[in-house]
């Protein structure tokens, strides 16, 4: 491409970039710099040190958590990191799995009132997050909708207690809160698939399944990947949902960071943990994109 095209590209990109730079630069620089400081009480010691990172990696007696040994002197961040990643990964798989067929339905089956369908999918999210979580608590709760319904039907005598305050409740609630963020990106990329391609494939004798595998699935990848990342990345740091419906075991790495910044007077350690978390997420995302051959895919369909 020509230099002129690069210039046009830059000028298109720059407004958004400038807004992001103006709002994002200071917090991110502060985060990085702070991770090399230390704090005692309300005083911050601004001498450069790697202590925070060293403490995160320092070997020690450690703990055994669900059969996994964490041989660190300060094992809590590592344990929470693993827990958060596992939770986020499972939630992402659930959400994408649930959302994909719906996006497909929207793109290929709905022809009338399409805009209405899409907006209706997001309306539950126009009510507040707290109210949605509250609703789920009523559904899953002790005298909640499911238990009362089952009791009324005579299927159970005592309310089921395992519905709420456990990882499954967290998963369901997370899946529900993020569903719009996965249906919409998948839908927009499915929807652009040229119908003539599909027809051509059938004309050439491809079965329904082969058509799906060779055309629909690959062409939906940009949206599916976008949705995966939009859900996986923020949910690693999320801690509100696990606290609200996860019960006493609902602590996540995000809550640790928040505690360190606020109550535990150790913002530098919080910063160091945030940075390690960000690097781990970046590495996992890179690995994921490499594994599914994202670069090649972009070239092929681009």
């Amino acid at each position, binding site marked *: *491409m020509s230099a002129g095209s*690069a210039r*046009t*590209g*830059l000028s*298109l*990109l720059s407004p*958004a970039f400038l*807004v*992001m730079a103006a709002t*994002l630069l*200071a917090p991110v620089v*502060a*985060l990085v710099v702070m991770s090399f400081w230390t704090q005692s009480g309300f005083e911050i010691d601004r001498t450069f040190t790697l202590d925070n990172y060293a403490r995160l990696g320092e070997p020690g007696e450690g703990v055994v958590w669900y059969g996994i040994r964490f041989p660190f002197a300060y094992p809590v961040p590592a344990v929470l990191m693993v827990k958060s990643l596992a939770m986020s990964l499972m939630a992402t798989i659930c959400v994408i799995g*649930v959302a994909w*067929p719906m996006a497909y*339905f929207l793109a*290929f*089956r709905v*022809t*009338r009132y*399409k*805009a*209405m369908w*899409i907006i209706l999918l997001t*309306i539950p*999210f*126009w*009510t507040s*997050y*707290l*109210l*949605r979580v*509250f609703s789920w608590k*009523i559904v899953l*709760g002790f005298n909640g*909708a499911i238990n*009362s319904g089952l009791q009324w039907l005579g299927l159970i005598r005592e309310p089921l207690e395992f519905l709420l305050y456990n990882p499954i409740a967290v998963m369901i609630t997370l899946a*529900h809160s993020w569903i*719009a963020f996965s249906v919409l*990106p998948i*839908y927009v*990329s499915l*929807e*652009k698939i040229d119908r003539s391609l599909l027809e051509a494939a059938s004309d050439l004798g491809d079965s329904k399944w082969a058509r799906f595998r060779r055309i629909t699935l690959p062409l939906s990848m940009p949206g599916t*990947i*976008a949705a995966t*990342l*939009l859900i996986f990345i*923020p949910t690693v*740091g999320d801690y*509100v949902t696990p606290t609200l419906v996860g019960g006493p075991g609902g602590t996540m790495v995000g809550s640790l*960071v928040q505690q360190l*910044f*606020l109550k535990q007077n150790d913002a530098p350690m919080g*910063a160091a943990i*945030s940075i390690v978390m*960000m690097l781990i*997420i970046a590495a996992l995302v890179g690995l994921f994109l490499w594994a599914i051959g994202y670069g090649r895919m972009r070239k092929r*369909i681009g």
Partner: protein
Amino acid sequence: MTKRFDLLFVYAVFFVLFLYGPMLLMPLFSLNDGNFATFPLKGFTLRHYGEMAANTSMMTALKNSLIVGICVSITSTALALPAALALTRYRVPGGGAILSFMMLPLVVPSIVLAVGLLVVILRILGLPLSLWTVAAGHLMLCIPFGMTVLMSRLEGFDKSLEEASRDLGAGGWSTFRRVTLPLAAPGVISSLLLCFIISFDEFVISFFLTGTDSTLPVFLFSQLRFPNKLPGTLALGSLILVGSAVLVILAEIVRKRGVASDNPGDL
């Protein structure tokens, strides 16, 4: 539309049930004559709606959130669209690095973003906190979402249409308006909706960046200390839910008058 009652259709029905089922408990308990949301129901009342209407701080917070949400979703989509075009259509030097930087709000803990921005606004710029500062924070949060959605829409589109338009002598703006924008339309709408949801629901950044005008999530979190106020918030949630659903359906019916479209890209 050919009505096909196959597995996919059944799935869609279940999906909508999953999405709306729990939400429908909100209107149910907002009409229940009790302060706690437990079965069995106690009796019908409209008093919670009276409490809601009388709660002026809540109504102001709702109004503030609507204003911020609408402004932020439009602005962030307007900024994200050209940026997404640039990154999918043009070879921008350092594009990958720029994109990674712009995606940072997804991974940086929100407390860091919030306090960092607050320090910048108060101590460097010396601005008072207002709805504008909340909007600035939300803008930062929304742009990455908008860009991701728009890029997934624009990626892999046949460039020949835009080239043809240019070959026919249309200028850059005219090509954008006649060709690119219609192509991007579903992405634009999705981005508007997602950005609105994010802004409307965001708590941490909103809390730190609000001055004396609070937004709805900040207000609702603060109400948790007073359980007697809960049914009033349920009433508000129900009104939003039912009101907007009815509004959207009516608007669509009026707009389309039932004209079916064969063009799948047509919204």
